[in-house]
């Protein structure tokens, strides 16, 4: 009997070439989503093969199938609950034993399975010969050789997978766990009949998991009344085994798996020279060298930073110019009115605000693909871990934090390289505290207005330093408050150095850019239109002067200055009375203790779209114009305003540094954590923190006799 639709799940260790194989099999026909409830990404691809429509699911790369990591939980639940027609386990042939460890666990789930012996060419070059026929016989499943980077074996793999999916006869795979463990399994299995029916996991596997003290399975079984006795019996059996064999049953079971694999390895693999120094080892001797490792790392980071932000600035500049040209072109060619304003300022401005980050996202993922593809990313974590671990983070947190000084959007996307969700989340939450380049124009204007040239450097440096110190403190706080319990392991593979294919790099860049545009872009666009509305409406306001008449009068004058001044004054008054202006006045009591007035309130509100917007908003309010060239006149206007003094200016800079990440960042956090909760939490906690720190600075400064 033939069916036309088949689903194939790809499983395998990280670094086994799974992604390359997935891309080879599906091409561009992919869909990226999330597994429900977790931050683990779910990738699906589609492929027509002969008369089958195949859905290929790329399971997260894992070393094992425990309940300790969400990736592993997702992988095993998918295999069992979604019942893919066939599971293809991809094995890095040059790293046979550890890769097969996962295979034995997948086999115990008793689903139709095919083994893809990937990178067989690399293994053979290293003098490792594998007898795949014998391997297939021992495991009872078909084995196919593939070379992902050269697209070899793809047809055969699909052919075998399709055939295996339709075979009804399967030999079951059993590892003998020794007399004592087997006895315990024998006792538990009869108690698990109901659990097997409800949870769909094989009975023997459930019994094993109970002996391994698997939290997820224990909890699921406790919910089933008929299997009530099983967990208590398992606890007893565990204690008994512990006493008899002197070790944790969990360890014993893993030990038996590895013993089985050790025997299998000796049987099917022949190695010429076990200690041959590989090409990869030689490179590593230099790159993680005691003396050279750190300087090389810092040099590479400097390159990455400049690639993303210095080189990225050129296309960004073109995009900004293009968008503003388009805006003014639309402005000239449309009739006056709300629609024109919406299109020219709201929509085009909003779209501009989305695509302006695109060059950075593309360049960042070029750099990340290169670092990950070559295998250097793991070494970067290896080199930096000591420092990052001290502050409650992971070695891999360094790159996102560094990028944070350029822009939080690519920085947070860069946190994707952290496999562990807790490490990733803490990193994402503190990254915006790294002062990004969009905050610099705010500092520049305020420092120029209130601090002399001699003090400018120190003031600026202190702001950046406060951001870093707060990031360290908050990382520790989040670690101990939000993510209590044991620390995350750093037990990490250092994969061999490889030359990544250009195709895989381009694919990664393309995929991430599309995702950014689809997922974060739509949110950024929507909210920027809302903020545009709030700063432009209502249009009918009560002005203090009859601007229309005055402007008409001024138009008769030979100089433009009078007219321009009036136009600016009118815009300032209009903004003051807009919804945003009302928000500013409304929140004034809340920000008064920080020394801020409503004008700063409006600016801070509008700057939620992007922090540099504070400068242009203040420019409009102070009627000096909102352009770059007006910064100098804004500086004078601010210096002349009695609401400001150096202390207020400093508190304002601190507030801008810390308070809610900009809209684009929030949208990116939403996309990367797959959760509005974390996006809003990031916005909320930082605003509260900003208030507290600015309060301490302002009130403390006043007590100390600073300011006025």
């Amino acid at each position, binding site marked *: 009997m033939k069916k036309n639709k088949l689903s194939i799940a790809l499983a395998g260790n990280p670094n086994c070439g799974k992604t390359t194989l997935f891309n080879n099999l599906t091409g561009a026909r992919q869909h990226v989503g999330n597994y429900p409830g977790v931050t683990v990404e779910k990738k699906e691809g589609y492929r027509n093969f002969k008369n089958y429509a195949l859905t290929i699911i790329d399971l997260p790369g894992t*070393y*094992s199938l*425990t309940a*300790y*990591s969400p990736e592993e939980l997702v992988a095993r639940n998918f295999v069992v609950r979604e019942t893919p027609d066939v599971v293809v386990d991809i094995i890095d042939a*040059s*790293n*046979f*034993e*550890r890769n097969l*460890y996962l295979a034995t666990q997948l086999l115990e789930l008793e689903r139709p399975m095919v083994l893809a012996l990937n990178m067989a060419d690399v293994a053979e070059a290293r003098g490792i010969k594998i007898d795949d026929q014998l391997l297939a016989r021992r495991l009872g499943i078909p084995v196919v050789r593939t070379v992902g980077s050269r697209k070899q074996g793809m047809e055969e793999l699909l052919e075998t997978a399709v055939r295996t999916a339709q075979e009804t006869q399967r030999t079951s795979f059993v590892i003998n766990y020794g007399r004592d463990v087997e006895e315990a399994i024998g006792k538990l299995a009869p108690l698990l009949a109901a659990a097997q029916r409800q949870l769909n996991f094989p009975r023997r596997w459930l019994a094993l998991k109970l002996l391994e003290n698997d939290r997820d399975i224990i909890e699921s079984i406790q919910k089933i009344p008929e299997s009530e006795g099983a967990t208590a019996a398992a606890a007893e059996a565990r204690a008994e085994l512990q006493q008899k064999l002197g*070790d*944790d049953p*969990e*360890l014993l079971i*893993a*030990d038996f798996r*590895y*013993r089985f694999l050790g025997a299998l390895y000796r049987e099917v693999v022949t190695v010429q020279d*076990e200690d041959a120094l590989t090409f990869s080892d030689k490179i*590593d001797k230099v790159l*993680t*060298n*005691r*003396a050279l*490792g*750190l300087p090389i790392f810092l040099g590479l980071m400097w390159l990455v930073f400049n690639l993303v932000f210095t080189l990225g600035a050129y296309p960004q500049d073109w995009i900004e110019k293009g968008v503003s040209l388009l805006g003014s072109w639309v402005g000239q060619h449309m009739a006056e009115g709300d629609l024109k304003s919406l299109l020219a300022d709201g929509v085009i401005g909003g779209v501009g605000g989305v695509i302006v980050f695109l060059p950075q996202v593309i360049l960042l993922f070029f750099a990340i693909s290169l670092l990950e593809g070559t295998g250097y990313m*793991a070494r970067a*974590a*290896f*080199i930096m*871990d*000591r*420092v990052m*671990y001290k502050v409650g983070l992971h*070695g891999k947190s360094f790159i996102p934090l560094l990028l944070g000084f350029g822009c939080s959007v690519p920085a947070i996307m860069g946190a994707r390289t952290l496999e562990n969700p807790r490490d990733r989340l803490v990193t994402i939450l503190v990254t915006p505290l790294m002062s990004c380049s969009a905050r610099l124009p705010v500092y520049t204007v305020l420092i120029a207005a209130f601090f002399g040239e001699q003090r400018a450097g120190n003031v600026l440096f202190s702001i950046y330093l406060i951001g870093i110190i707060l990031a360290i403190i908050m990382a520790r706080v989040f670690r101990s408050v939000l993510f209590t319990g*044991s*620390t*995350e*392991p*750093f*037990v*990490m*593979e*250092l*994969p*061999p150095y490889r030359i990544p294919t250009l195709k895989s790099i381009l694919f990664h860049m393309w995929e991430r850019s599309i995702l950014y545009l689809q997922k974060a872009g739509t949110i950024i666009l929507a909210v920027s239109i809302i903020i545009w509305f709030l700063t432009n409406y209502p249009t009918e306001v009560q002005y203090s002067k009859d601007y229309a008449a005055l402007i008409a009068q001024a138009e008769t004058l030979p100089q433009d200055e009078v007219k321009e001044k009036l136009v600016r004054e009118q815009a300032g008054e209009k903004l003051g009375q807009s919804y945003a202006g009302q928000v500013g006045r409304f929140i004034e009591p809340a920000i008064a203790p920080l020394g801020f007035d409503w004008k700063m309130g409006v600016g801070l509100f509008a700057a939620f779209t992007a922090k540099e917007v504070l400068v242009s908003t203040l420019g409009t309010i102070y009627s000096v114009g909102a352009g770059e060239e007006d910064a100098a006149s804004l500086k004078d206007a601010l210096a002349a305003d009695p609401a400001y003094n150096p202390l207020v200016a400093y508190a304002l800079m601190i507030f801008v540094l810390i308070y809610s990440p900009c809209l684009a960042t929030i949208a990116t956090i939403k996309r990367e954590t797959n959760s509005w909760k974390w996006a809003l939490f990031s916005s909320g906690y930082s605003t509260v923190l900003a208030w507290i720190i600015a309060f301490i600075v302002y009130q403390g400064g006043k007590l100390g006799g600073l300011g006025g």
Partner: protein
Amino acid sequence: MHKELSKLQPGERAVVIKITGNGPIHRRIIDMGIVPGAKLKVEKFAPLGDPMEIKIKGFNLSLRKTEADTIQVEVAG
């Protein structure tokens, strides 16, 4: 002579005797193939002294010294 893996010098070879501790870290260690009887070699320590890198079952693994403290090994001659 038994000692903690973290006390070994680069270049030294050893056989795993026992793994103490429990929880996710412990589990990760055994999943990566660090089980009693496994042979390993210490490759190096990171430039800042921690973590360390070992070679086991033909691949390179890094782990923090605190994690390596839970692994008892016997130094091979």
